[in-house]
């Protein structure tokens, strides 16, 4: 409900992510089947689906952490991970891929903070070494981001001295430090103790007001409050692509109903 005002103009907004007929196999297992997807600027898209449905794989293809077998994925109009030669996909150079990934923030289920660096160093690491931001500026930016996720007092702590919720908020700040145009969240709250989920979702809700986000998550409260669209993925296909209200109140497909009945209890 919270974002209906945005929906009206989303169709006109520039396309940030565009996937065309994306197929992906793990060996003989067909994990993504002819996926088509468009995400516009400032849109917040939630992906739900049973485990093994391919939802995380889809997310990881968008920043080329996973290779695809056919189809195209464009981020900000540029194909990611590949260029085309004689109609065939050829993997792009490492440097080009890295450059594109720098524009895409990613938050992982297991946080993946760098354990040998403090909270503030975790956030400064990529701006300094990838963007060549001067150290003082990177540090000032990092401190601003720490304030934004409510963890100024933890800047000199190492990850193992922080709770799961705090670590995930640092991980969000770390991704934001690269000023990405798109944020990917791969089950950001599923490794958290229940009492820490709220603090992470609060940060994400704030972010959802101004950021293009694709979130793999089963947090339905978050979906209702922050999502413009929700995708139900099953067996490698997008089964439904609609608004959260529509999906919860009028799921079209039987397997959507079955899945919702399992997670909404």
């Amino acid at each position: 409900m919270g974002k209906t005002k945005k929906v009206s103009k989303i169709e006109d907004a520039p396309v940030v992510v565009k996937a065309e007929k994306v197929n992906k196999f793990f060996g003989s297992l067909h994990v993504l089947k002819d996926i088509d997807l468009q995400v516009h600027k400032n849109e917040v898209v939630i992906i739900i689906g049973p485990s093994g449905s391919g939802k995380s794989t889809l997310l990881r293809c968008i920043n080329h952490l996973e290779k695809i077998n056919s189809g195209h994925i464009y981020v900000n109009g540029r194909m990611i991970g590949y260029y085309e030669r004689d109609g065939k996909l050829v993997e792009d150079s490492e440097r080009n891929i890295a450059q594109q990934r720098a524009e895409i923030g990613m938050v992982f289920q297991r946080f993946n903070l760098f354990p040998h660096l403090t909270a503030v160093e975790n956030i400064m690491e990529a701006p300094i070494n990838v963007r060549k931001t001067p150290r003082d500026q990177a540090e000032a930016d990092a401190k601003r981001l720490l304030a934004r996720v409510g963890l100024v007092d933890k800047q000199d702590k190492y990850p193992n001295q922080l709770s799961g919720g705090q670590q995930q908020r640092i991980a969000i700040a770390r991704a934001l430090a690269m000023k990405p145009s798109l944020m990917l969240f791969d089950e950001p709250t599923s490794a958290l103790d229940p009492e820490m989920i709220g603090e992470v979702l609060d940060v994400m809700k704030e972010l959802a007001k101004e950021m293009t986000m694709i979130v793999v998550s089963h947090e339905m409260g978050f979906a209702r409050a922050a999502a413009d669209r929700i995708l139900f993925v099953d067996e490698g296909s997008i089964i439904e692509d609609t608004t959260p209200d529509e999906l919860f109140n009028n799921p079209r497909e039987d397997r959507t109903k079955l899945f919702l009945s399992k997670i909404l209890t």
Partner: protein
Amino acid sequence: MYHFDWALFWKYLWPITALQNPLVRNGLIATIAVSVIAQVMGVVLGLFAALGKMSKIGPLRWLADAYVWFFRGTPLLVQMMLLFYGLGVTHIYDFPNLHLGPLTVIGALQAGILALGINEGAYMAEIVRAGIEAVDAGQMEAAKSLGMTFGLAMRRIVLPQAAKVIIPPLGNEFNNMMKTTTLMTVISAGELFYAYEQINALLFKPFELFLDASIYYLIMTTVWSFIQARIEAGLGERKGNEKLPGFFERLVGTKFGAH
């Protein structure tokens, strides 16, 4: 009954008198220098070999595998002779004496350093690889997702964490290295054991002299054990992690005063 020559024993043990002998003096310097240089070489080669072994590029992997296979599968002594005499006789490299300012590095010493370093690299490869593999794969993914290239992510994120796993066995390797330098005696490289052997050839007091040599090696390895314990304790402390076993704990095997 054997008459133990205490005077000779002390003469070649007590540093002030022992180091007056240029063979001993240069031998001691050579042993320490060779150990350090060959170990550094081994770490660098081992890092490249480890990355090669983990590479997606077939030929790189085969090259690294072949390197490790050969140098771990043949005796170091043979490698040293092969390198020194083999390269010499084929005139690929004649091992001329190198003059580095006031220092002269004789050919045999160069061959010894090369052989020890290349051999060590093959062993370090496995140690480095184990260290890299001990780092969670999510670290590389997170680094890549932030726009880091493989090389940058290795250098800034993975290797600093792998170092914690690599450094304890690396310390043990260095301890071995100091003792293994004695093999260079067969190519007359002039390290510490060679010095005592030469003196023995003149005086024929093997018991006293080789005991002296043993004590020198024991001092070097013991001093290193102290340094190693300090380094490892430092590694453990830096982020409030549990402390690694200290020197005495390592020596005795249990924590002093523990039940």
